[in-house]
């Protein structure tokens, strides 16, 4: 079973046509990979589908805009994957 990072990296590679070997857990989706907000919607869509979750993009964006969070917290891939794991775990906790 692929790791969360492997799945996310594959999604980014396919969605944004970025070579897979350029994508690491330390990559910042915006600053390092050059993904803009519109392209990130396609990634969010694919992640939502792959993990059966709903990334809270609006809340994250609001927190960043308000200065309550940094983009690194949500858009560095290792951090993004940790958020995804949290969402998947929370969903499992609710459904059990």
């Amino acid at each position: 079973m692929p790791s969360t990072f492997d799945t996310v990296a594959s999604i980014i590679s396919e969605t944004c046509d970025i070579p897979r070997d350029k994508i690491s857990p330390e990559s910042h989706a915006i600053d390092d990979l050059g993904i803009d907000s519109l392209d990130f919607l396609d990634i969010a869509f694919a992640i939502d589908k792959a993990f059966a979750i709903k990334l809270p993009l609006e809340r994250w964006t609001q927190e960043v805009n308000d200065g309550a969070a940094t983009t690194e917290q949500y858009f560095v891939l290792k951090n993004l994957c940790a958020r995804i794991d949290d969402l998947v775990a929370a969903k499992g906790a609710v459904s059990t």
Partner: protein
Amino acid sequence: MQLEYFQLIDRVVELDLGARTIRCEAVVPLTSTIFEGHFPGHPLMPGVLLIETMAQTAGWLVIAATRFERMPFLAAVKEAKLRTFVTPGQVLSVVAELIHDGSGYAMAAASIAVDAKPICNADLTFKVMDFPSEDFRSRMRDWAKRLQFPIGTCVHG
């Protein structure tokens, strides 16, 4: 349809929030200044307006799904295919399905048919935001009423 006013939907025919689908009807006007240029002596509904017609149909579906709380703005058009010409007087059946209701965005698939013959289709992405103002929201509700939009089925209070 009032092409010059970008009012491209005439009537909401079916809205199924369970299935997350909508069907609208739109009649291409017999005359329009747009046809004077597109094209002289050979009037055709512009493809970009067919895409906008699909976007407006899907947009009403997103508004319904958010119970008139949020406004969709077209952000991306993918896999748009314009299969055949559309001419003045034709009755368009426009359908859309909400594929995904994300956080601040929505994905929809839409298509148009005339007499059950496929005309065009596209995958559409919307940014979904709060209405910019209560006045705008009120105007959209008034517009919806003119389209016979079943507001009561998706709005409470």
